[in-house]
């Protein structure tokens, strides 16, 4: 299936690879089908590209590569719609955001993907987690004096 995207031009997506989000995403409720693309420059980064809206894509990362102790506690009610028996069949990614000071991760609302069923959902994790966890800042680093 060929889709035309703003960021990546025309790309071919195998329909079997498409992820279906029954509820879309908050703010993007109309976008129910997505393709998860690997970034060709950065193996830590993926792009969740809407297959119906070429202008809509979200940068996503595997959270543990940036927050090694990130442990997401997801209420069962949030997992049931995904028909996930347990988290081992799940892939968890978080959305990359941007503020004036740099890049951030939404640790509070990760995206959970049922790999076998090819479905996904953005869930609200329990606990005090940031929606804008800073990972990259453009503040100049302080140099230590010799």
């Amino acid at each position: 299936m060929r889709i035309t995207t703003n960021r990546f031009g025309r790309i071919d997506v195998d329909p079997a690879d498409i992820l279906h989000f029954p509820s879309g995403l908050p703010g993007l409720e109309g976008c129910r089908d997505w393709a998860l693309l690997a970034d060709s420059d950065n193996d830590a980064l993926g792009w969740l590209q809407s297959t119906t809206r070429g202008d809509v894509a979200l940068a996503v990362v595997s959270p543990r590569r940036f927050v090694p102790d990130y442990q997401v506690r997801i209420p069962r009610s949030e997992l049931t719609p995904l028909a996930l028996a347990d988290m081992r069949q799940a892939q968890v990614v978080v959305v990359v955001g941007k503020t004036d000071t740099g890049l951030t991760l939404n640790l509070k609302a990760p995206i959970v993907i049922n790999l076998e069923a090819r479905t996904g959902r953005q869930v609200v994790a329990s606990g005090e987690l940031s929606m804008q966890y800073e990972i990259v800042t453009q503040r100049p680093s302080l140099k230590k004096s010799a």
Partner: protein
Amino acid sequence: MLVLSRQRDESIMIGDNIVVTIVDIRGDKVRLGINAPTEIPVHRQEVYEAIQRENLRASRLEPGDTQDIGKFAGRSSNGPTRPPEGPRK
């Protein structure tokens, strides 16, 4: 806004497939049970709106914005989360 009074264990039907039940009332806190089809997300309003705003903000990112991200990534983890898979762009 439609305002209805309900006591504990009473319910409200929204449309023909959403049921809201008063599970418990303690002081000024009410516990609500919600039965809805899975396609309909149910969230605390302020949390949902915050996620909406954050997603819309994030949807404006371009590949140029994420160039530096690799510098801050650790090595691949063996945990339940794996690096994103999929066709290379």
